[in-house]
Structure formats: C-alpha cells, structure tokens
C-alpha cells in the first residue's frame, strides 16, 4: 500500500511553507515551492529545491488559483501536494483536482473535507458519534433577511461565521438587533474574499467559553489516535493569539473524554491524516462540559505545541501517512510531557486597533536557547507586503511546567527585536504577564474585555533613555562600523573599561 513520495509541491507561503519544506528535506523528499510575483526570493522559495511562479501578488490570482497551482505541480514533476493551512487547504475542489491530476493530496479525501467543512454535515457527524454540539444552522435563505431571521430564532447574542472556513475570517459577534445588517454584510464579504464562498452560518453564542481543541491523526489502514488537547482561548476577534498544551486546569477525566470524543468524530467522518476537533468548554472543574464546535481538516497553525508535548513531528507524520504508511505507534504510547506555549507574531499595531502593517524588517533577530523554537516566514531584510495574512512567525516555548514556560516565553519575547514594522510583540509581553494568563484563567472574550490594560503602557523609563540615545546614534551603519574597528590587539582596552572609570 505504501507509495513513497518523491517530490512534494507545497501550495502555501510564509512560515508553514518553510516548515513543510524542511520536513520534506528531513525525510529525503524533494520540495517545490510556489510563489506569487510578490514572493520571489521569499524564505520559502529560497529553502525549496525548486520553485514555480503562480501569478501576480493578489492571492486570488496566485495561491488561491487551483488551475495555476495544479499546473505548477505538473510542470515541476511533483507527485504530491501539501496544502499547509489557509489558502486551498480546506477546499474540496482543490483536493479533488489534485487527485484527478494524479497528485497525492496530503490531507483527507475531498468528500471528507466537504462534509466536515459544512457546519451542518459536521454537526450531524458529531451527533452520530454521540458528541454534543452547540445550537446553530446555515440558513437556507442566505439573503440578509434570512440570516437575520435565523439569528432571531436562535436568540441574540449569536455568532456569524463563514460556512466555508475558519481562522476568524468572516466571523462576527452580534449582540444587538441594530448591528445585524452591517455585521452580515462584513462577514459575507470577508468570507467571500477569504474562501471564495460567502455562505454564512449562525450559532448560539456561548458566553465566556474556553476554546479547547484536540489533535487527531488517522492513517489509511483504520488507525486513529488523538494527540491530546490545545487551549486556544486567547483570541482577539476570533483570531488565536496564544495557544498552549496542556489546557490549564482541565480535569483529567474531561481531557480523557474529549480525546475519546475526538477520535469518535474522526472515525465517524472516515477521516485520514491530520485533523483537529474544536470544542467549546463551558464551566470549570468537574462541572465543565464540552461541545463539538467544528473540525479543521488540515494542519493547524498551533500544531507545534502538540509537537512539543508529544515529541512527535506532525508534518513528518502527514507525509508518512500520505505515502500509505500505517501509524507507527498506538494511542497508549502517546505521552503529554511538560508544557508548551505558542505566541503568534503578527505584523500589526496593537496600539492602533491591531491594524495590519507593511514594510521592511530593518532588524529582525530571533531569540534562541533552551526550549525556544521559532517558525518564521521572514528573515532580516524581508519586505512584508499588504497582500497576505500578517503572520510573520511563531514563537513556541516548552518547559517542564506552565510557570516556567510562561517565564521562558516572556524572556524570549523581550529578546526578540523586530524593528522597521510594528508587531504585536509588546502586546504579547503584556498578555503573558497578565494575572489572568498567569493563573491560566482566560476565556475567548478575555482579550477584548482587557483590551485597555493590554494595549496601553507608558514608555518605560529605560526605553525613554534608550530613545534619547538612539537619536544620538548618527551616521550610516558603514560609517559606524569604521568608527570603532574591532580590538584585534588584546592589549587595547575595551571602551567599557573606560566607562567604568567614567562612572566614578
């Protein structure tokens, strides 16, 4: 049944394309990058063995164009396609087109993507697997009146979501009747732009829920395992910001039941390869209950926290399962060890409404050291453009305990200078230091409620001094380099020694 992959086209860009290309190389598989005209020379195209240009900068004309991507795979002689996340990863037409072109699609079969991508069908699957769901529906009448009517029938507050995809795109909370019309229009346009399908789903809003998801993995031989949970409640506008594993305070019995429920849903769906079952968790401790929310039929942005606690490499597993290999381990061999936290580094200005930012990375130095992993789609000198998702990189830390992991993440963020463009790094430092985050007690509405405390901070005294000094750092870098040549003569005193004298 095993058919080794020789050459994989990675139908994505940014950090996930880099991550998949690396995994291919580690397994002795050739990689083919695709890129738009704006991404020629981007890190994922530098790392790959080959690359194909698939069109002009707008994603709809390049990364989202099924025909061009398939043509690129054929032109490069690829035998398989890894979709990454976002873009075409949950588009059944793409999975289908790959199969019809003789390309292995590294993910579940097209009909499974289609079924689990439909909120209604996915809920039916969960129901058939005996897993509880949150009330909601995709109105047959998709006009504004039809969606508004459905929202009223379920009862406000409701959540509007793109029926075709996840990731916070096209998602809106509606609490007041008066907000309905504008929210429906905005959600529909965002959904159409992001997924090529403006169909909306309306759901009862669970107040103060936690978002806890379970990673599942299925091979083509009927083997299915779960790889424990991820806590993703730190969200801003339904966009995850910080993810961790294990979920803090999750009772062991609940964790076990959620794992079993996730495997049951995947089995009921006929699932293959990596997938994620998202749950809402309501309540605390032994009273907590969970509801099936949706399934993501692809690798998640936050898969590294699962890798850190289980010691598995999810992209290696994806490639192996896609080649027809059975899972090499059983459920009881999977361990959840230590604590991992991922911070998403976005090009956005937290002090200006989290507005996405574009520009050149003048200084970009990643933190390193024990328990620190950075998955990046940029390097120093990269130009961040307006065309794509503002995710620059992910910082993943792991440590023996949650407290140590939090401290490690904060230390790493404070050693992560990204200059030339605003990022959310300062916001992340404040978020991880917040008492509720330190206590592990946050729900999906936390960041919105605490927005004020998290986004404003007076310039620290040291920073003001540094700014004053920076203003005095004149001359070009080249001039500066000449100003003080390296002290190759060991007898030459370092200026710091002079500085000590100066201070007396």
């Amino acid at each position: 049944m095993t058919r080794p992959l020789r050459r994989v086209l990675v139908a994505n860009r940014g950090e996930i394309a880099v991550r998949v290309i690396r995994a291919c190389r580690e397994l002795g598989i050739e990689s083919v990058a695709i890129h738009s005209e704006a991404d020629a020379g981007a890190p994922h195209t530098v790392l790959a063995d080959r690359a194909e240009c698939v069109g002009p900068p707008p994603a709809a004309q390049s990364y989202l164009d099924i025909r061009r991507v398939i043509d690129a795979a054929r032109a490069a002689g690829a035998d398989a396609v890894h979709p990454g996340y976002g873009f075409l990863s949950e588009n059944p037409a793409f999975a289908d087109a790959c199969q019809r072109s003789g390309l292995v699609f590294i993910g579940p079969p097209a009909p499974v993507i289609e079924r689990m991508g439909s909120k209604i069908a996915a809920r039916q699957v969960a129901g058939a697997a005996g897993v509880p769901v949150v009330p909601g529906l995709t109105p047959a009448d998709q006009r504004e009146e039809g969606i508004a009517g459905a929202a009223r029938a379920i009862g406000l507050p409701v959540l509007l979501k793109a029926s075709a995809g996840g990731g916070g795109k096209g998602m809106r909370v509606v609490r007041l009747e008066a907000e309905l019309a504008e929210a429906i229009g905005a959600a529909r346009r965002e959904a159409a732009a992001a997924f090529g399908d403006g169909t909306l789903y309306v759901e009862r809003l669970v107040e103060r829920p936690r978002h806890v998801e379970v990673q599942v993995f299925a091979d083509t031989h009927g083997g299915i395992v779960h790889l424990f949970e991820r806590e993703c409640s730190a969200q801003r506008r339904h966009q995850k910001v910080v993810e961790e594993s294990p979920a803090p305070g999750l009772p062991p019995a609940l964790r076990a039941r959620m794992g079993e429920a996730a495997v049951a849903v995947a089995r009921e769906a006929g699932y293959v390869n990596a997938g994620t079952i998202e749950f809402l968790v309501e309540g605390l401790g032994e009273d907590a209950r969970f509801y099936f929310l949706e399934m993501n039929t692809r690798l998640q942005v936050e898969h590294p926290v699962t890798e850190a606690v289980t010691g598995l490499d999810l992209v290696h597993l994806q490639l192996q399962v896609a080649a027809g290999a059975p899972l090499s381990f059983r459920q009881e061999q999977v361990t959840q060890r230590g604590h991992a936290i991922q911070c998403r580094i976005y090009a956005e200005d937290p002090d200006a409404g989290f507005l996405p930012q574009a520009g050149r990375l003048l200084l970009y130095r990643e933190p390193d050291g024990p328990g620190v992993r950075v998955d990046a789609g940029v390097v120093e000198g990269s130009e961040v453009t307006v065309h794509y998702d503002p995710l620059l990189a992910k910082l993943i830390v792991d440590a023996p305990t949650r407290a140590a992991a939090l401290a490690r993440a904060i230390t790493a963020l404070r050693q992560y200078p990204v200059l030339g463009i605003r990022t959310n790094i300062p916001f992340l430092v404040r978020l991880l230091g917040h008492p509720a985050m330190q206590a592990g007690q946050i729900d999906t509405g936390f960041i919105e409620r605490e927005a004020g405390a998290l986004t404003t901070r007076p310039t620290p005294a040291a920073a003001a001094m540094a700014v004053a000094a920076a203003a005095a750092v004149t001359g070009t870098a080249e001039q500066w380099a000449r100003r003080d040549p390296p002290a190759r003569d060991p007898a030459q005193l370092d200026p710091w020694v002079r500085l000590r004298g100066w201070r007396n």
Partner: protein
Amino acid sequence: MATVTEARVNGGLYTVTADGRLMRVASPAAGAGVDILTNYLGHGWLLLLVRDGVRQPAWVAEDGARRWVYCDGEVTVVELAAPAGTRRRPAAAGGLGRLTAPMPASVIRIVAAPGSRVAHGDTVLLLEAMKMELPLRAPHDAIVRAVHCQAGDLVQPDVPLVDLDPLA
C-alpha cells in the same frame, strides 16, 4: 572627542554625551543618568544601558531619519529633526478635513459619495488589507467634499483619499 546632543522624549529633555561607543544620557528631571555601551550589530545597534548597576539591552534600527527602538518589551519610533532644507514628514498624516489609508490597501467601496452628509463614526470608505476590512470613518460630522480614489484602487498611506468639510 565627546559630542553632546539634546533629545526630547515624551516631553522630557535628555542630554546625550557620546564618545565613540560610549554614551551617557542624563535627564535633569529624572536625576541620575544612565551609561550606555553601543555594539554594532550589522544592520543596527545594541545599546547596553546601565543605571544604578542594573543593565537593560535596547536594540536600535535606522530607517532614514527614523530610529526604531526595542527596550523593556516596548517598541518606540522616534523621528529625528530633519536637517534644514529637507521636508519633514507630518507627525500625524491626514488632517482634520481629510482621510488617508493607514497602510497600503485596496479600496473595496466608496460608501459616502461626494456631497453626502456623514455623521461622526460613519464609514466613509471601505478598504481592505491583508484580508481584513478597514473602514475609514468620519472623525466628526461632515459633508464629503471630494473622493480621490475609486473601488479597486491600490492606495498608499499618507495620500489624501477623501476631503471632508466639517460641520459645526
């Protein structure tokens, strides 16, 4: 050899004495000063601040007349006074009467046509960047005097897109 510069940060006045890689920053208001050792980092600098024996690193990048600073978990961007004869970039782009894009974006829709009346907070223009909608809202009650773009345009920051006549 030492040069002395004055810098104003957040309304505070700082005196910077620089001698090669060494600097001392003093603020009359803040009392004691801070000593700084500068390291050249290729395309930027690492400043090592020392105050009362406690150290703090700061990274600095150069962007024309701007300096970007990362220190104590916060980023600060400072614009140096331009030498005489060069045009200074306005501190806040867009004035009371005009709307500008905050970043490169594409225009999705003109919501309020020239001549129409808009209330404070109304969306005047809908932009999109990085797959997110960016509504440009009226900062006050106004009449739309002119719109300088159309749907589908790619627009740059700091370029006036809409002129507004404020209503008293």
